[in-house]
């Protein structure tokens, strides 16, 4: 019947108390959104950054490439993979790349490092952080056979400037050493010294020729998604094409970058733990309020039971009250969280002054700007968790109300 109405009116009878309690729920929402949204943003950011640092959200590669990434392990028909990947909805890009280790020499100095060979006709800054962070020159064009983009740190070490020579030596598929020349067409600076000191972007054609690769061969095809959470499902779609082919493996970013996945895992756990603890505190607060309210109203329950209300109905009544508290708290929470969230989602807080810009975690550059982003499922999760928390907090008071016999209740007050 109007048990729900009754519960609502009971709450409203002591507005101050209910609103304060609802406010603590709302605060829980705010907290949870703050933690989750900053996490969601940071993880998305890190995953996307790591994706554009070479391997993509998904990488299609030789099954053994992951364990020992040497240049003899290659995809023979990367072009076909690329074309196939681009058919899949959610895929925003697929880049054919050769990635490997090489020795880089300029003038009389040399350093070891890693190269990413790209197809300049296909590659865009959206899929390549190095092309996004150019500080001098530009990426080599499609007809510039010997172009190279180097990191600022390496340029400094090898005394390179635009137009200067860079000789790189790598081990080809037969284990032979091959050297090629390239001229610096651009210099990038990501901010991470170790990346800027060791990564070199080379033209795909030049590296292919140097290594003696087949015309369509490459180390991998890096696939980019509009949302990294689709990685698993897109992998499933891709993998279906090559169930027979033992030479092709599809790896999600979690698999190709276990360090990053591990870091995010640990961070997320810590985040959840914190939210759980704060949740417990808030739940204790709600329980406290309901318990007090139940204690105050023992006589009322006694009367209702005298009039024939079943203990179960009393329990339900109190649970409904906590239900309303939860709803009220959620609404309040949305009201107080929205402006904060909107501010953080658009402007954010810049921490670069505190932590500097060269801060990396899990081998990935971390954006020093704290911003918010909330996945739909995270939002649902928060709402669900906060709501169930209030219900759970109501259980004990509800049973306390339902358990006492009417005559005991009647004697109170």
């Amino acid at each position: 019947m109007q048990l729900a109405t009754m519960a609502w009116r009971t709450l409203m009878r002591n507005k101050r108390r209910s609103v304060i309690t609802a406010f603590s729920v709302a605060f829980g929402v705010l907290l949870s959104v703050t933690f989750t949204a900053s996490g969601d943003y940071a993880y998305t950011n890190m995953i996307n950054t790591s994706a554009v640092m070479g391997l993509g959200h998904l990488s299609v590669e030789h099954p053994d490439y992951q364990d020992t990434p040497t240049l003899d392990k290659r995809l023979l028909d990367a072009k076909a993979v690329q074309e196939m990947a681009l058919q899949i909805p959610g895929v925003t890009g697929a880049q054919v790349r050769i990635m490997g280790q090489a020795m880089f020499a300029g003038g009389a100095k040399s350093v070891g490092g890693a190269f990413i060979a790209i197809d300049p006709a296909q590659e865009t800054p959206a899929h390549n952080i190095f092309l996004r962070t150019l500080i001098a020159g530009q990426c080599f064009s499609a007809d510039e056979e010997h172009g190279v983009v180097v990191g600022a740190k390496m340029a400094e070490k090898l005394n390179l400037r635009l137009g200067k020579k860079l000789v790189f030596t790598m081990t080809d598929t037969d284990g032979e050493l091959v050297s090629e020349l390239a001229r610096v067409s651009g210099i990038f600076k990501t901010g991470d010294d170790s990346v800027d000191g060791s990564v070199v972007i080379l033209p795909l054609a030049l590296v292919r020729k140097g290594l003696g690769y087949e015309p369509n061969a490459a180390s991998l095809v890096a696939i980019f998604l509009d949302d990294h959470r689709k990685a698993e499902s897109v992998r499933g779609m891709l993998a279906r094409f090559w169930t027979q082919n033992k030479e092709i493996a599809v790896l999600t970013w979690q698999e190709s970058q276990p360090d990053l996945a591990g870091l995010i895992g640990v961070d997320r756990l810590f985040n959840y733990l914190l939210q759980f603890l704060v949740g417990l505190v808030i739940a204790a607060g709600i329980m406290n309020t309901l318990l007090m309210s139940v204690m105050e109203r023992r006589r009322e329950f006694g009367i209702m039971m005298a009039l024939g209300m079943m203990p179960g109905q009393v329990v339900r009544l109190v649970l409904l009250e906590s239900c309303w508290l939860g709803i009220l708290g959620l609404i309040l929470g949305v009201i107080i969280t929205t402006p904060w969230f909107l501010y953080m989602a658009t402007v954010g807080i810049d921490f670069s002054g505190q932590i500097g810009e060269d801060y990396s975690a899990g081998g990935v550059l971390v954006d020093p700007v704290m911003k918010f982003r909330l996945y739909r499922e995270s939002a649902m999760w928060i709402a669900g968790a906060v709501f169930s928390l209030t219900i759970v907090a109501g259980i004990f008071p509800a049973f306390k109300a339902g358990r006492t016999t009417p005559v005991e209740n009647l004697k109170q007050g």
Partner: protein
Amino acid sequence: MNNTPLVQLENVSRIYQQGKVQVSAVTDFSFTVQGGEFSVLCGPSGSGKTTILNLIGALDEPSQGRVLLEGRDLAELGRGDLARLRRDRIGFVFQSYNLNPVLTACENAEFVLALQNVPKALRRQRVMAVLAEVGMAELAQRRPDELSGGQQQRVAIARAIVSHPAIVLADEPTANVDSATADAILELMERLNHEQGITFLFSTHDQRVMARAHRLIHLRDGRLEHDEVRG
């Protein structure tokens, strides 16, 4: 109507543990109430009136003896059955009205019917009829804190009789109202007893109530002192 008494108390005792002392509220008490009675339990404070009402109303259990309502031993019923019994067969009127403060007069009166899952339309109809009966039809949408003590008590009576209980137990129903109101309320209950045959059992030490009773059960220190039936 068969000849089973409506209420039977057989050698009932009720002992409370109060701190370290045992207090005997009712001792070896037996009596019966027949349907249609308009009876009063009377005696000074602490003579056991309320305890007996609570025992009959299935709110309390005797330490010894049996309480039977319409021939059924209450001790054999579970908590749910007792709640249903209270809901369907017993009406309560309390000294301090005890209306639910968050419900309107109408909703308060409707409460038991709602517990009985009576359909909403029928519920409204019956409640409005009963409220008219007790003279509260105009004030049906008011909350208890917008009503006087007498008005509240009328609503409480409406709540007690709307479900057609076998017996209405009224614990000092006039204690908190002025004498004019008390008279009006008593008249109302008398009329209900007379016209609808509702059985009433009061506890009181109010002379005006006793004056109207058909039967007076005098109590002292938890024992039956005198059972006086008047014409």
